[in-house]
């Protein structure tokens, strides 16, 4: 685990995704502050002061990351395609987090022509302009509200697994020849602190493992 801690230290992250997917809330969680009850639909790209992130892991270890040069930006496609939009935000990032919602997953918004797919198409065109080796991880937010609205958890889990598999296959084939940069998708809740902590631990390990695997393959190949 020490290697993962060392790897994450000093990494730059970018957070993008559709409007109301939970980007601001993710930023609040990383800054260890509560999600404000009323906040604003981001109107322009704004710099966020550098802040330290301390992630408590289950084995009493912590990951310390200094988030520097963070830019918070809106989720409408207008921001994605603007000159000082998503590309500027992602350009120097080591890891790009794409935030979507469970609703987007269940409504299959990753199918051709729909919003998530359009964003992933954009990502494919953006990847050559990003930092060499920049990784992409998908966060699927708002799992808490879906859990609350279901009673048959087994059926719901099966449905989720099926959709997650579909999304995963689609992303891998779409991002070709950059599929190795994709580190997976994780269900998360920015609102529920317990789910968030468990999920973010998995995310940080998954991203590091994917990086390690890619490096190993590159060396072997």
């Amino acid at each position, binding site marked *: 685990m020490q290697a993962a801690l060392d790897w994450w230290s000093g990494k730059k992250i970018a957070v993008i995704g559709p409007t109301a997917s939970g980007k601001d809330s993710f930023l609040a969680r990383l800054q260890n502050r509560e999600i404000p009850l009323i906040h604003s639909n981001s109107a322009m790209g704004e710099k966020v002061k550098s802040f330290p992130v301390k992630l408590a892991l289950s084995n009493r270890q912590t990951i310390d990351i200094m988030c520097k040069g963070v830019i918070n930006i809106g989720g409408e496609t207008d921001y994605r*395609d603007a000159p000082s939009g998503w590309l500027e935000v992602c350009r120097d990032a080591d890891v790009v987090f794409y935030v979507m919602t469970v609703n987007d997953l269940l409504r299959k918004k990753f199918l051709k022509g729909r919003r998530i797919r359009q964003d992933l198409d954009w990502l494919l065109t953006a990847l050559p302009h990003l930092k060499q080796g920049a990784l992409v991880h998908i966060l699927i937010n708002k799992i808490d509200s879906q859990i609350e609205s279901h009673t048959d958890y087994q059926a719901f889990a099966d449905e989720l697994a099926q959709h997650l598999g579909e999304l995963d296959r689609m992303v891998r084939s779409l991002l070709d020849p950059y599929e190795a940069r994709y580190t997976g998708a994780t269900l998360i809740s920015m609102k529920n602190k317990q789910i968030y902590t468990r999920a973010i631990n998995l995310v940080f390990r998954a991203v590091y493992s994917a990086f390690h695997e890619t490096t190993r393959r590159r060396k072997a190949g």
Partner: protein
Amino acid sequence: MRAYWILPNRQQKDDLLASDGAKVMPLRQILEPKLRPPGFSHGVPAELLERCAPTPLAQILFAQKFPDWNAGRQLFCVSTPAGVDSSGRIVHLSLLLLLEQNERPRFDLSCAALSELDAAYARALMRRLTTPSPDDCWAESVLRLRELPSSRGPATNVELQRSVVPFYSLYAAGTAGLTRKATTWRKLRTRSAIFLLLVAAVGVWLCERACQHPSRPSTSTGAIAWRSS
């Protein structure tokens, strides 16, 4: 001049919507995202909302002026908070003006295509800009921005600290409201006055010192006569 409303995204749609007064359409049909100037804001930046608390949100106005935007044309945009969306986030209504070179912005646009709620915010915004009350410093800041010479470059009515792009600004905002920033000329005048005051103070001090030492011989002055032969 072409004028449009940029409508509040109350339903959290993927695209921002706009209206020319008569019909509603995606904003990208009017203003391609790629043509939007760097730092262009589709509403009131979050930093202003945070910095100006507890100022009532409805009072806050944010305006941007891009004098040399696209082939010499200008872009002027005024935004105001306009209620909340379906998950309680503050949303914004903007009046976007696309102007020819040297054209003066006019705040006049129909609200016919807007919902009742959006139209109420739109009418209130136009009223404030066309007939501002004497104590409405936010409206005054927008009107001053309108008159700002183009040579200043991209400018905003209120100073931003978290903008990715630098802007010239006229006012600083804080919990106490808006304060007008000193212009270069005013700054120079203040500095000159301070310098003159300092010189005067040193002069007075030297005089007093000279008076306190009367035993010192006074400096004799003389004249040299120059005689040409």
